[in-house]
């Protein structure tokens, strides 16, 4: 222990004595490590950015179940029903927050000689919970609307403004594709639901799904939205929902499900895959850089050992054995690389900050360099020092003391 502390001290004094050479030797390591830090920073930033974007599009605990369509027969393989929804809601009430059917299309709306196109969503009251929807005036679709086929409509703020201007809209009757509807609710102005695509947020309307089915004479054309009780429950809920549907509807002749799901988890998995690919790339780049840097360190260690041959001979005369010399130079190599690692981390942080500042102008890059990245970098560089220090140190340890002492 006494020896090791002394070797560290000696190594530091050697390293700092020859600052220029130390720096030149370490450039490779500094660049390699700072690149690692920067890439980790960028990956992290990209990940948080993509995640927040995904959250904006839809809650990540949300999934959609839809009927599979056979393009050959031009028929749906299976059709989900309201009974399915009730059944799943009942069976999985502890695991899901809300479940709602959804069928959407475009419609044109007439009022007082004006006509506008807008996006129509037909659903049930549960939809409000699925998307954490807010209503500015009036109300959303309720249970009675569904049961009694009430011809009511909820309008986006922009749609309402286009038609009614500043006049009161609630209670007014509008005509939707030939059928009359009473306006019962309006979404807030510039409503930015964390999930609905912003651009069409305002320009849309909602009607009870049962009314749509009666008017169009269609049945069970909808997909189902299921929101799990938290993101971590989504995979479980996904399996359960499919299980219930498969039991209730049977499988296709090929033994496949008649239904399919889509959720943001698929998106998340994609993000994870991209992240892994980036990490592998990063690992590759870092390994090659540090390999080259390590060879540079080995080279300089060989030079150092040649320069200090007399010192090695002297140390042997003074009582150092092979292990002592070996340890001294391995430690020197490790510390040399360690210093490079610290400088690299330092540079990496500065560069990351800089990149973050520039990126701010384009996207919100909410990232910091995680502590583990710095720690792993330091461990890794130390390992490089160890690995590439072994050969020179062995060479030093094996020097003949007499020849070493008389080396000129």
């Amino acid at each position, binding site marked *: 222990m006494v*020896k090791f502390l002394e070797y560290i001290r000696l190594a530091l004094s050697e390293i700092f004595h020859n600052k220029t050479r130390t720096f030149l030797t370490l450039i490779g390591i500094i660049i390699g490590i700072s690149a690692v830090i920067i890439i980790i920073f960028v990956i992290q930033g990209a990940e948080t950015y993509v995640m927040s974007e995904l959250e904006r599009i839809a809650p990540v605990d949300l999934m959609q179940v839809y009927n599979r369509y056979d393009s050959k027969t031009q028929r749906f393989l299976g059709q989900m029903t309201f009974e399915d929804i009730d059944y799943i809601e009942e069976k999985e009430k502890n695991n899901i927050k809300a479940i709602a059917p959804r069928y959407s299309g475009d419609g044109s709306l007439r009022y007082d000689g004006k006509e506008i196109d807008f996006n129509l969503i037909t659903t049930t009251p549960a939809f409000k919970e699925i998307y954490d929807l807010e209503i500015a005036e009036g109300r959303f679709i309720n249970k009675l609307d569904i049961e009694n086929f009430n011809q009511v409509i909820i309008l986006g703020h922009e749609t309402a403004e286009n038609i009614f201007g500043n006049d009161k809209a609630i209670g007014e009757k509008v005509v939707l594709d030939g059928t009359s509807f009473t306006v019962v609710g309006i979404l807030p102005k510039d409503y930015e639901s964390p999930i609905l695509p912003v651009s069409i947020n305002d320009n849309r309307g909602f009607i009870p799904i049962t009314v749509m089915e009666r008017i169009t004479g269609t049945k069970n054309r909808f997909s189902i939205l299921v929101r799990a009780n938290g993101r971590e429950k989504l995979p479980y809920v996904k399996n359960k929902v499919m299980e219930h549907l498969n039991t209730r509807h049977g499988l296709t002749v090929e033994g496949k499900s008649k239904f399919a799901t889509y959720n943001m988890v698929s998106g998340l998995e994609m993000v994870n895959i991209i992240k892994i690919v980036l990490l592998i790339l990063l690992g590759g780049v870092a390994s090659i850089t540090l390999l080259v840097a390590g060879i540079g360190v080995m080279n300089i260690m060989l030079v150092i050992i040649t320069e200090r041959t007399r010192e090695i001979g002297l140390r042997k005369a*003074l009582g150092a*054995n092979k292990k002592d010399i070996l340890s001294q130079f391995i430690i020197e190599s490790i510390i040399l690389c360690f210093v490079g690692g610290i400088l690299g981390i330092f540079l990496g942080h500065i560069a990351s900050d800089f990149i973050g500042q520039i990126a701010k102008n384009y996207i919100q890059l909410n990232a910091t360099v995680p502590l583990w990245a710095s720690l792993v970098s330091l461990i890794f560089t130390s390992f490089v020092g160890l690995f590439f220090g072994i050969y020179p140190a062995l060479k030093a340890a094996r020097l003949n003391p007499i020849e070493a002492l008389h080396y000129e």
Partner: protein
Amino acid sequence: MIKINNLSKIYGEGEIAVKALDNISFEVDEGEFIAIMGPSGSGKSTLMNILGCLDTPNFGDYFLDEMKVSELSDKKLAKIRNKKIGFIFQTFNLLPRLSAQKNVEQPMIYKGTTRKEREKISKKVLEEVGLGDRIDHKPSELSGGQRQRVAIARSLVNDPQIILADEPTGNLDSESEEDILEILTGLNNSGITIIMVTHDKKVAQHAERIVYFRDGKIIREENIKNVQQFEFELDKAGGGSGEIS
């Protein structure tokens, strides 16, 4: 304390083989001060290396304190060099980056002495060789004589039984030479065995016995004590007055 029997050291093989030491035998008692003289290539350096456990003979035995050195492991030899032997070199061999004190501490590192203890001992020994006020100086800030005194201090810190000095005054002016020889004599008086290589007859006079080498053989041994007394009137420099404190 040191016993050498029929020792040979041969460098190279076959036709080009050089007998650096050719079947020599001699003994050194504890507390002796021996000078080894001879022309270069006579084998005196080779003997010093073997005595210092830095080299091993091809033939013959070397006993140090009853231990057969040729049978010891590398690790054990390092330990002997560390604890029993102190080396003094013609070129001082100080580490240029380290202060006098740090230089003196080096052998204690291999012994495993704690830092605090090392500082205490090194300071004390440097004071003994008259460099108490120079402990923080780098070798480049010291004169030749001072450097050699640092080297002597370094050789002493682990309380060696033997000091091997290879031309210790070879690079020094006559004044420093006197200082160093005085210190060595003092050390010898305190009981340390000293074996010194020199080519300078005057320097050799400080020893009790001179061993002459030529072509790898001991050609003559000379007991000095009487001679020294005889020459005392002529040569004030000679002598064992070197009290060090």
